[in-house]
């Protein structure tokens, strides 16, 4: 990556980040390298902040190992209404409920969340196309965690 003087902006980096935004469908990316911090976020043009860290102590907190908490869920994401383990297919042997590219109707089952031995179907709130599956089958999910994007 190109080195930067303090205060000047690496245009190539910003462009790369902007492309990443489009590709991944995220709304915001923030990256820090050494002294430099860049945040690129979507929404009416790209806004770039290049900031030098402040002299005072920032509340340095080790990043919590949390799935959805803190990060903005992508637009159109169906989020988890409960804490549990997500499964993308009805049982280990079967096909997944949906794959990327599928058209779904409102009410179609997208995945299951198992909590306390009870399997809860998560249904699509709208008709649309499955564009992204953000979780792996068998992984734990928390309340509010983004699961599947239906646009």
């Amino acid at each position, binding site marked *: 990556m190109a080195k930067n003087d303090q205060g000047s902006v690496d245009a190539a980096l910003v462009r790369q980040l902007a492309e990443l935004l489009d590709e991944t469908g995220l709304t915001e990316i923030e990256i820090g390298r050494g002294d430099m911090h860049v945040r690129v976020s979507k929404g009416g043009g790209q806004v770039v902040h290049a900031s030098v860290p402040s002299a005072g102590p920032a509340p340095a907190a080790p990043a*919590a190992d949390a799935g959805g908490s803190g990060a903005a869920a992508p637009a159109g994401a169906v989020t988890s209404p409960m*804490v549990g383990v997500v499964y993308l297919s009805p049982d280990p042997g079967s096909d997944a409920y949906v794959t990327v590219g599928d058209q779904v109707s409102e009410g179609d089952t997208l995945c299951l969340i198992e909590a306390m031995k009870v399997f809860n179907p998560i249904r699509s709130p709208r008709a649309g196309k499955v564009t992204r599956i953000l979780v792996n089958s068998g992984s734990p999910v928390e309340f509010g965690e983004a699961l599947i994007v239906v646009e």
Partner: protein
Amino acid sequence: MFDKVLIANRGEIALRILRACSEMGIQTVAVHSTADEGAMHVRLADESVCIGPPSVRDSYLNTSAILSAALISGADAIHPGYGFLSENADFAAMVEEHEITFIGPSPDHIRLMGDKIAAKAAVKAAGIPVVPGSDGGVATKEEALRLGKEIGYPVLVKAAAGGGGRGMKIAETEDDMVEAFLTARGEAEAAFGNGEVYIEKYLGQPRHIEIQLLADNHGNVVHLGERDCSLQRRHQKVLEESPSPALNRAERERIGEVARAAAEKLGYRSAGTIEFLYENGEFYFIEMNTRLQVEHPVTEMITGLDLVREMVRVASGAPLGYEQKDIRFNGHSIECRVNAENPETFAPSPGKIGDYHAPGGLGVRVDSALYSGYTVPPYYDSMIAKLIVHGANRNECLMRLRRSLSEYVIDGIETSIPLHQRLVEEPDFIDGAYDIHWLERLLGMK
């Protein structure tokens, strides 16, 4: 010893539990609502799990979400803190059914002490003095009238499912009895789903004095002295201190031993507090709290024991390792509860904290999850900090309290610090001459 503890609470007590676990090398899991994503203990925990939206019912009282979080994170124990699910016997039982340790007393003791009628009978049988009153529940207004006459007015009609000052109605004279009885019953039914009530003599000028107990799983029980929590507003404690200015050493040792022996007889384990009303040299049991209490730091300061650590230790099966004769009481300690509210109107004052500077120095402790830039959410209890001071004697404590209150900066919201500053200047408080009605009288509520 546990590898991983899930903290089923929020705010300052969640941070308190996290600190104790961290010092013991135990991994921590913080469960939180969406409103608490920026909470300090969530940021510091090894793992965090969002369990629901801001509402308490859907998050911190959501037993299945919390249990699921424990299961997916692989926690081997849960510490419930105080409030929320800490005295929910069903939750404690469910936790144990899933082979996770509930860091607290047994579900049976939680259930027993949660039923105020059964609790009174059980402790009475174990030798604890109780308030004169009905022998069990009172079913009819005729019986209420008969008891009122027998006990002598004024009397209190109390909900069996109540506690913490809730679900009580006074009958000053015989004329008030029927109404007090019927409304207490109706309100109890509405609030707790259980309309059973009992009747007790109303004490005119009692102090609230409670005994801290600690027991391991092997039958060893100690008492850790008393706390005087008479300064209350609407049954909420505002300031607590230990030792009580009202007790001498003989009385302290006597009631401490009575409480300790009763807990031993009941087979109690973990931390617990027996609350008494004290009047004219007599102690009267009101209730037992089967959990850690908000004001536990006062006891920690004078005994040198970390109560959260001890709870975790005994829950993991370790013996106490000390006996009553090994407990030392040093000096005096006072705790002020700092709430996010207007110090005069008590209107809640949530919002973003600007400058934050906690007092320090010898004998000053602040238990708080606040930090500059933190937003106090509007959904929860208004207590945001506890300022605890310790000194060689009560006078030193008072000076230290005055000094540290004046140093404390919490900018951006209103807090009850000015109320505490007023209290430490009141002659009655300085003399230690106050009962459970004193504060409300001072505030013009009575």
